[in-house]
């Protein structure tokens, strides 16, 4: 079930919230847990068992790590076993076929693929549950004694499928006791609607332009259109992802949870280093906390720092998908970040305008590597960006998508948020949000509109 669906908004949400708020506070975690399992099972009934086992194993691991507090060997063994399980399942479900593909390629082998779909949200929940066990091991938090609480934490439907990656320590207090204010519920609802609009009205809309690029064929597009295409994909992925995060944060607020911010206007950054502090913040934080620092971070000399960065960014790339272009995408950012660390950053700080242009270009080209899976096609697309072929196709797309691109760019900057925060009387904001909500519904209904042309006669 997607948040941006009529089923979720008009059936799941009302029923869930009525039950949630009518029941006594001590049952609410259980209700949240059960509702989340239902939410998950709706699209993926087979893999519910996988997530429940994952909770169970880490639940037991947490308790045992705490019980053998004095015996480092046992503690480490349990931690390592839990990590092997967590990473192992992720590897199996997400990367098995990718590994086989590469083995086959290198050794000219013919090992057959397995036919297994990717369990929904596995990349997200695996990282979340690992953070829990590692934190218990580090004694940053107490082990959770209640399977239901741990289950409610991991399965919590707002963030189950697409983040933000909430680590256990961020919500452990709220899992035990949280306060409910109408103010928060209203605020949560506002954030949810903003997220819904981001996804349905902007991301899906500009996404249409990007989809057309592939339809026309990358080799056939003009140079201006190639840049328009990259711009539209950049906006699409930002509003899609940020939209989901906002919806999750909003729903969390309505449930009494405070989820961490995931995006902070990344496209206004003045360097790639800054960009990665503003883009998908919870993921970068996770990799910093649970990979970069354990590897030694920057405390083991310059060379080791760069090796560590290389590892972190390759894995970050790989996390986004089982394909080489994602790994290259990660390494691409490793190179840029390293250059900035070495000398570029000092130079950029002196140059306000050039630094923005550089950053935007770096991000756009990064998205090209991200969006196009086949290396051959990346080469073709890159060629079109500097082909100096100027046919008329871009006129059509500028006319059709110009307005929505401008709206997208405007919402990528903090101007509107500043305006919004300044409004003491929120009537105008409320009307605006209501319109966004109604338009989102119209677009969602239209998505299911499918005139049957009988067919094409």
């Amino acid at each position: 079930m997607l948040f941006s669906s009529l089923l979720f908004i008009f059936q799941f949400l009302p029923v869930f919230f009525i039950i949630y708020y009518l029941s006594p506070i001590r049952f609410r975690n259980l209700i949240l847990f059960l509702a989340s399992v239902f939410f998950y099972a709706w699209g993926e009934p087979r893999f519910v068992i996988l997530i429940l086992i994952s909770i169970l194993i880490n639940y037991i691991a947490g308790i045992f790590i705490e019980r053998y507090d004095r015996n480092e060997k046992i503690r480490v063994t349990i931690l390592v076993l839990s990590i092997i399980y967590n990473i192992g399942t992720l590897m199996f479900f997400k990367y098995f076929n990718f590994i086989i593909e590469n083995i086959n390629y290198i050794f000219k082998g013919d090992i057959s693929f397995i036919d297994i779909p990717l369990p929904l949200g596995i990349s997200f929940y695996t990282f979340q549950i690992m953070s829990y066990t590692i934190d218990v091991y580090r004694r940053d938090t107490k082990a959770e004694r209640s399977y239901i609480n741990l289950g409610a934490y991991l399965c919590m439907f707002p963030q189950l499928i697409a983040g933000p990656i909430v680590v256990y320590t961020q919500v452990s207090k709220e899992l035990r006791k949280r306060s409910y204010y109408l103010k928060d519920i209203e605020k949560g609802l506002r954030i949810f609607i903003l997220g819904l609009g981001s996804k349905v009205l902007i991301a899906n809309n500009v996404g249409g332009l990007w989809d057309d690029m592939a339809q026309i064929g990358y080799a056939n597009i003009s140079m201006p259109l190639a840049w328009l295409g990259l711009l539209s994909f950049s906006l699409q992925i930002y509003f899609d992802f940020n939209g989901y995060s906002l919806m999750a944060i909003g729903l969390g607020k309505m449930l009494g949870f405070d989820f961490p911010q995931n995006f902070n206007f990344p496209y206004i950054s003045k360097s790639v280093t800054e960009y990665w502090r503003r883009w998908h913040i919870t993921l970068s934080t996770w990799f910093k906390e649970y990979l970069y620092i354990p590897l030694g971070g920057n405390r083991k000399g310059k060379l080791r720092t760069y090796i560590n960065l290389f590892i972190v960014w390759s894995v970050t790339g790989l996390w986004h998908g089982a394909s080489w272009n994602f790994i290259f995408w990660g390494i691409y950012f490793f190179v840029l970040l390293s250059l900035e660390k070495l000398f570029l950053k000092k130079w950029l700080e002196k140059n306000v305008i050039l630094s923005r242009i550089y950053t935007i270009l770096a991000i756009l080209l990064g998205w090209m590597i991200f969006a196009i899976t086949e290396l051959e096609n990346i080469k073709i697309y890159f060629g079109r960006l500097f082909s100096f072929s100027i046919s008329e196709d871009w006129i059509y797309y500028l006319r059709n998508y110009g307005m929505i691109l401008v709206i997208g760019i405007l919402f990528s900057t903090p101007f509107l948020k500043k305006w919004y925060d300044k409004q003491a009387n929120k009537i105008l904001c409320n009307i605006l949000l209501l319109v966004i909500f109604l338009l989102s519904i119209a677009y969602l209904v239209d998505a299911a509109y499918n005139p049957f042309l009988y067919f094409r006669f």
Partner: protein
Amino acid sequence: MKKIRHYPFLIVMVILILGISFINLIKKDTDFSEMENRYLAQKPELTLGNILDSSFGTQYETYVNEQFIFRNQWIGGKAITETLLGKQENNGVIKGKNGYLFNKQLNIDKQLKKNVKAIRDFGKNTNTKTYVSIVPNSYDILKDYLPKGTPNIDQEALIEQSYETLKEEKKITNIKLDNTLKEHKNEYIYYRTDHHWTTLGAYYGYLQFCKEQGLTPVDINSLTAHNVDNFYGTYDSKYKGIGIKPDTITYYQRPIEKMVIGNEEKSGLYDLEKTKVRDKYAMFLHGNNPISIIYSKENEQNQGKKLLLLKDSYGNSMIPYLTYNYQEIYVVDLRYYSDSISKLIEDKGIQTTFILYNFDTMMTDNHFYRLSR
């Protein structure tokens, strides 16, 4: 609870969402959507099987989406919003000049080459004379009406390539329509709101067909014309924007002996009941059927002549003219006809085959393999 009035936005939203949910719950489901010309999804039955293979979830979601209250109004609202955003397209239909709607067609389907080869092979193996015509769609002929830079594929070139392939077989005669239709592009040869050509467009196609064969065509002015107004076609169903003017269907009465569709016998070529519904084009030839046989009244022209017409719905508006030149027309729609074509030709003693498709069907339909049966 007194505090709740301090949160007017929350109140409005809760009432709105609960209200819509409630109405959706109690309202009666719609069976058929005339706008979309199809049956809407109904509530799926819950079984253990469809839960486990997760098909229940998908079916139920489709049901919720398609039965949503005020469906047509939401869809209209979206279309208007798109226009306000400066869009010239909606749901894959482009709005051009003079109220014309066009298909958005960005990529070349690989099926085209397969289909053309299947026709070439058919021409080689059959004993009839074979005529082939690929009718360009409106955006190819009415290029001047398209918005600047419309990224549609080059239909003209693709049709030309297809004819080149067909020419490899000497027994096939191509009936090229591009030039004829272009000469008449300022006339009403395509519907503005529908993907078909008009009966006038079909007439120019018919003239070309007669010319290639050396037949005497029927004079359109000698026929009695009837008009059906207020026709909103399939492009309009998709586009749904404002400011679209309806089309007029003109049809010509051609008295025939009889028309046989399956076991049914019809006395005329048109189903006039269909002029009252939205899908008015279905009036021609009583819609698309696997095989219909038309027995014309005998005249000097058509005496004893038999034609096999393999066609899509573009053919439906040309057939009335063809009855003037053929006494028996076997109209076959390969999408629904699965019996052997060669046997049909043999059994009925057919001398001529005419394959008439619009480019869109020619490129995308995957039933041409049935030609070899």
